[in-house]
């Protein structure tokens, strides 16, 4: 009896029929050498459907990466269609690192692709999300040089952004959570840039440069944040690293400062009459990095105070501008709801137009240092004698 039970129990092992393609559980077995690991997936609008483009990683043997594109009606259909068009190997989407959306596609609504990535097991929510400002993902993916591809460009861009900290590359999960919890989100915007004449050792092609943030409201792209506003948005989200700021010295010269700031303190208070008032308080550190001035007293206490005041005024103006934009668009892309929640208040319990009617008060209290302050104690920003 025991033997017969063992035989019965062992029979299903016949279903584990090795590495071949079959209807068994090894139906999704893939030979690693034959895989084309997709690193970048692009989505663009096209008539009633969309264009899906994919760039695989560069194979070890130095051959150019597989780049495929296809016009389709839906993303799942598109991924299957790309599979059939691949020049070699099998496309494997499980390690997709970058998801690039064309501006026109994002304007019609990116929530569909986000929803797909959330649910589909082939992709992952940790993929970084980009929107191509004034262009298409397809052009970016197919337009790279022969020696490099779009994934190299995006890797470099992300790495530089992480280090410089002027803006932030959000991933699909962060974007999806911001959209579902606060109704709006920011997405890293980039602009195609031709490298002709600026890249010498490599073949020219289409690269990308950072270009602020795209604003998603309810899943659709409604606009962009530029320059100072995108910096201020990064600061509001606690994502700003060290950035440079040029300040006038008051005598025609300029002082270059490095500005760094942690997440600002955001508090919601109810003013008299029940109006909601949001208080934003930032305390950036401004380090004097370079001087281009004829003034000799520029590092005096009084001058430093004036520089600090000027830095604070500029930063406050930028913060007020980005907050005004958020209220004007009625899009909480700065995740103010998050700060409100941190105070134990559910944004859902506030009136539906709370963002539009919000009174905002911004205060910036910069602290100025200069990098050769010999009087400062060792170990501080001023350096000093050990």
């Amino acid at each position, binding site marked *: *009896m025991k033997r017969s*039970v*063992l035989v*019965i*129990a062992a*029979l*299903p*092992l016949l*279903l*584990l029929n090795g590495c071949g393609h079959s*209807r*068994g*559980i090894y*139906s*999704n077995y893939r030979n690693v050498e034959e895989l084309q690991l997709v690193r970048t997936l692009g989505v663009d609008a096209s008539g009633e459907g969309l264009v899906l483009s994919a760039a695989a990683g560069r194979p070890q043997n130095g051959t150019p990466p597989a780049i495929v594109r296809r016009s389709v009606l839906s993303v799942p259909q598109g991924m299957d269609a790309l599979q059939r068009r691949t020049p070699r190997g099998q496309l494997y989407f*499980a*390690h997709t690192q970058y998801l690039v959306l064309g501006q026109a596609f994002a304007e019609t609504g990116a929530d569909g692709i986000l929803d797909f990535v*959330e*649910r589909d*097991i*082939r992709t*992952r*929510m*940790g993929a970084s999300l980009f929107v191509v400002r004034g262009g298409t993902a397809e052009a970016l993916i197919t337009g790279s040089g022969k020696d490099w591809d779009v994934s190299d460009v995006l890797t470099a861009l992300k790495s530089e952004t992480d280090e410089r900290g002027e803006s932030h590359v959000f991933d699909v*999960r962060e974007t*999806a*959570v911001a959209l*579902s*919890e606060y109704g709006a989100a920011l997405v890293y915007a980039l602009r195609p840039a031709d490298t002709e004449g600026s890249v010498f050792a490599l073949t020219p092609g289409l690269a990308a440069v950072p270009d602020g943030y795209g604003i998603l409201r309810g899943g659709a792209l409604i606009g962009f944040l530029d320059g100072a506003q995108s910096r201020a948005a990064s600061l509001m989200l606690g994502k700003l690293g060290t950035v440079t700021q040029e300040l006038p010295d008051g005598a025609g010269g300029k002082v270059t400062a490095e500005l760094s700031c942690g997440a600002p303190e955001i508090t919601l208070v109810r003013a008299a009459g029940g109006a909601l008032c949001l208080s934003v308080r930032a305390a950036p550190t401004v380090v004097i990095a370079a001087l281009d001035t004829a003034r000799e007293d520029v590092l005096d206490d009084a001058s430093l105070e004036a520089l600090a005041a000027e830095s604070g005024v500029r930063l406050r103006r930028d913060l007020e501008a980005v907050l005004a934009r958020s209220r004007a668009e009625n899009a909480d892309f700065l995740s103010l709801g*998050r*700060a409100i*929640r*941190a105070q*134990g*208040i*559910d944004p859902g319990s506030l009136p539906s137009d709370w963002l539009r009617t919000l009174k905002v008060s911004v205060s910036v209290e910069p602290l100025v240092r200069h990098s050769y302050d010999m009087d400062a104690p060792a170990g501080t920003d001023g350096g000093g004698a050990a």
Partner: protein
Amino acid sequence: MTRQDRLSPRQFVAAVFLSALSLLIRRFPRSLAARAGRGALLAVPLSALPMLALIAAAYLLFRRRAAGSGLSEVFTDLLGRTPGRLLTGLYGLWFVLYAGFLLRTGADRMLTAVYTGTQPWVFICIMAPVCAAAAAGRLLPLARSAMIFRPLMLGLILAVALLTAKDLDLTLLRPLPPVDAAVAASALEIANLLTIAFFLGFGADRLERPLRVRDWAPWLAALLGVIGLMTALCLGMFGQELTAKLRFPYFMLVRDLTVLGALERVEPVVIALWVFPDFVLISLLLHLAAGNLRFSLSLRAGRALPLLCAAAAAAAALALPGGIDAQRRLSERVVPILCAALGFGPLPLLLPIAALRERTQKRTRAHDRRNQA
């Protein structure tokens, strides 16, 4: 039951704990988030109240019973021989269907989360014979395997928690809503997990000694801790709306896990490890189903009945509808309601009878003593 097939209370509790792990991954924390949002975090400790009530009821039922009494004996003792046997047989049939449902949902989990290119019958046809072989044997090896799998599963859950902790946004857990009807309903949904302990009560005749509080209390706390941890991780990672939207939010959370910056896409391993609790639970149900039917129909002991039960469960699994909507209806409405009805339902009938019986026995004993005096 053989003389060697005796379970220690620790082994019995391990089997219940692992069975509950198998059940909770099917719906939690998605259904909790869908119903109560962030209030799911409140529902977890709140569920201890109905759970303790169920445990107290089980204590009352088994109080002053000789060792070797399972639920079958309780039924026949309290309800009479024929109704007791009929009810035991009904539970046997339910266990077969329940095992079939678990086989199917386990297969669908594999299809949804890992092996998209295949069919559910592959997994059903592999799992059913393996569980049949285990169910045809004694209960003790199953309980021992539960003892082995329990630290493995707890280690896995803790490792996932540690690796995801850095990405959590704790503000997504705040503010906690007041305890309302949705939170209370979620608490009952969690407590419904413990009906599996009631079902496994049919195997309580194999217990070496009655359970004491110190046997089960730490593991009840651990179970609630696991549910609370999974809920907090998913809510802190995805927020309440996204958690409610994803089919298996816990596995989606594992999908984006990177181990030491080197290992990615480890979710197939985590999902595959959940086969162990499934194996223990399905095997236990088939074993108990065979025991119940044998008791009910006065059949001789043998291995044919567990194999037949397994075949019937596999057939039920293959016959279940495959559409997402139908499965969701089964998973979220039909099966939980049946579990609650069969797990909590007999108690209002059994407890008064047990109380009356006890009172009558007391009076009889007192009367006997007076007569003797």
